[in-house]
């Protein structure tokens, strides 16, 4: 399928998923949490898994963008802005997912106003609030000159650009250099910020001593690593579809593929270590969650989705000669990015779906006191809507935002090389 066809598929999928998702959001907003299937035993589910999935994509793609703006890696220059845009969109999706799960959605401001900094959750919310502001500022600076250049255009696009310039009219080379300098500072601040907050998301689970499946020093590290893998994989897909597609970004895509392959192998090593150490020790509570992953009622999520589709096939595609074909490589990226949703589900749910006190799920007869969890229709629809919104945001970005290295009104493009002498 050509790039144009892929784009059309993107739009159709986006509109459909978003439209279907609205049903779920309507139910969530009018019925509260009546129609969800999580419980007092498994209090987190699909939404929280989706949250750590999207937040990982955001941190991962931001860290990859920092290769361009902090470490000056020329290979990825072509997708720097796309990576920052991806980081913004996926962060918004992550926040929507976790917001949907709150028992009192309107009270979300409490986390900023009454933050308890002993809680990893409060810490990371403060951190990614700052991160969101930083991302938006960085992205605006990256686009500013193109926006100013495009502001003169007639029509809708020109109007949008005029609003987005926020009054800036400076097209000079000096101003562009200043933009780049600030971007570099922001991106440099962003690297430790993204590292800490995504490590912090791992710590959010890792600190919970009550859940032996989560309580491991490996968690923050695994989260960072999987963020890089999934973020890189998603960028491969996005690079293949957007801007000028896989034809124009061939070398960038293949380079991303090599990087993602290396990181994925490292991730497999870490995961293997987690399994082997736990099973050798054999402490029942420590391996209960792992047993659920490999042999519970949702064993196929691990074996088929996570391992076969999300790991083995993409590794083969990125090792065999198919690695040189940007279409196969980006397909591998798609598989990895999709497979990581399985990874996220297998972090959140098996850690919870184990009775903390033996027999407690039988003590009272209630669907809210069971270790069995499968997302309800509302949960699926809300998630589908968020994914659809993500696709639409990418589509709008593609339509309206200036493309890398080109300019809508024919003004000379700003070379990144010149910006970083």
């Amino acid at each position: 399928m050509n790039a144009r066809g892929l784009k059309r598929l993107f739009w159709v999928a986006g509109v459909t998923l978003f439209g279907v998702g609205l049903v779920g959001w309507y139910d969530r907003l009018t019925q509260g949490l009546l129609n969800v299937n999580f419980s007092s035993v498994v209090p987190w589910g699909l939404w929280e898994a989706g949250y750590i999935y999207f937040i990982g994509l955001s941190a991962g793609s931001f860290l990859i963008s920092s290769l361009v703006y902090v470490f000056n890696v020329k290979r990825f220059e072509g997708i720097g802005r796309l990576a920052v845009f991806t980081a913004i969109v996926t962060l918004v999706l992550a926040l929507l997912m976790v917001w949907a799960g709150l028992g009192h959605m309107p009270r979300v401001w409490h986390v900023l106003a009454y933050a308890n900094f002993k809680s990893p959750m409060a810490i990371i919310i403060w951190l990614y609030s700052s991160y969101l502001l930083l991302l938006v500022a960085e992205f605006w600076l990256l686009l500013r000159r193109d926006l100013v250049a495009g502001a003169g255009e007639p029509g809708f696009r020109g109007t949008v650009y005029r609003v987005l310039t926020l009054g800036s009219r400076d097209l000079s080379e000096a101003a562009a250099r200043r933009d780049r300098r600030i971007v570099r500072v922001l991106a440099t601040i962003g690297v430790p910020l993204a590292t800490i907050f995504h490590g912090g998301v791992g710590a959010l689970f890792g600190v919970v001593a009550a859940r032996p499946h989560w309580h491991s020093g490996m968690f923050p590290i695994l989260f960072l690593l999987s963020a890089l893998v999934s973020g890189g994989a998603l960028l491969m897909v996005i690079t293949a579809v957007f801007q000028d597609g896989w034809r124009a970004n061939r070398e960038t895509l293949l380079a991303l593929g090599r990087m993602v392959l290396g990181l994925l192998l490292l991730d497999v090593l870490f995961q293997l270590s987690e399994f082997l150490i736990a099973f050798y020790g054999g402490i029942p509570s420590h391996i209960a969650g792992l047993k659920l992953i490999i042999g519970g009622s949702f064993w196929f999520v691990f074996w088929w989705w996570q391992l076969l589709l999300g790991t083995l096939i993409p590794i083969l595609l990125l090792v065999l000669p198919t690695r040189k074909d940007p279409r196969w490589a980006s397909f591998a990226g798609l598989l990895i990015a999709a497979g990581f949703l399985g990874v996220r589900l297998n972090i959140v749910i098996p850690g919870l779906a184990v009775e903390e006190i033996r027999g407690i799920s039988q003590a009272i007869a209630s669907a809210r006191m069971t270790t069995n969890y499968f997302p309800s229709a509302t949960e699926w629809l809300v998630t589908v809507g968020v994914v659809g919104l993500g696709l639409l945001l990418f589509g709008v970005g593609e339509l309206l935002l200036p493309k890398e290295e080109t300019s809508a009104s024919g003004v000379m493009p700003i070379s990144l090389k010149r910006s970083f002498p």
Partner: protein
Amino acid sequence: MPTDAQRRIGGVPMSVERKVTSQALSRRELVERLFGAGASALAAALSGGASVASLATAPPARAAVQDGGIPTKRKFRYGMVIDTRRCVGCRACVVACKAENKTPPGVSYTVVVEEAVANRFDEKPIFMTKPCFHCENPPCVDVCPVSATFKRERDGIVVIDYDRCIGCRYCITACPYGARYFDFGEDYAPVAARTAYAAVPSPEYGQFRPRTGSSPVGNVRKCTFCLHLQDSEGRYDRKAGRWPACAKTCTGHAIFFGDFNDPESEVSKLVRERQPVRLKEELGTEPNVHYLL
């Protein structure tokens, strides 16, 4: 200044310590935190009104809940000793708790779990009634992103501020004992049908909240040792019936409740003279509920 909760309960004297902040106070607190004392002073100066000045100087509501927030030696250390040999598994405690706290379906501040014992001469399993343990080091408290759940300074009871809790359920994951429940908003048929039963509010925290779909719906809920039955000094009175409902009703007298700070209390004597165990000691939570096996 009377809080909403005080107004709601009319003439019944309730101590401020038992109140959880009202929404109005929380908002004021937000303003204070956001803008600091400078903004309050500025507001007072601008308006010159006594009402604004008094608002700015009033002690924060949460300080009142936590007895001034100053770490003092605790007055009471309430806890339980539960004798599993006396327990016959009748679950009267579960029902009594429901009747007292009007908890909705799926929320049960105490449950009875049972476990078969191998090589026993009869078929009786071990029954274990399990309220919240009100741990000395409660892991649920530290993880709360908004400090909505905390251990009371005066008596060590772990409570939840329903008006502050955002319903993220992090505390449920952090409790090693499954003592916390989420209120999804489900109702028993008579409540859902708005019969007379629905008009009786839960006396929890002395707040008497009507079940309207707002808090505690969407909040995490837990055992409070029926603290709404304390007097203004924070004391329970068994003879007067002001005693945790589960302990009051227990048919086999398996649930002993009392103050571990009082060396002469029944629970202190039991812990001293018998060999009780606590669950998951390895986590260092130091539960205040002990079991006799």
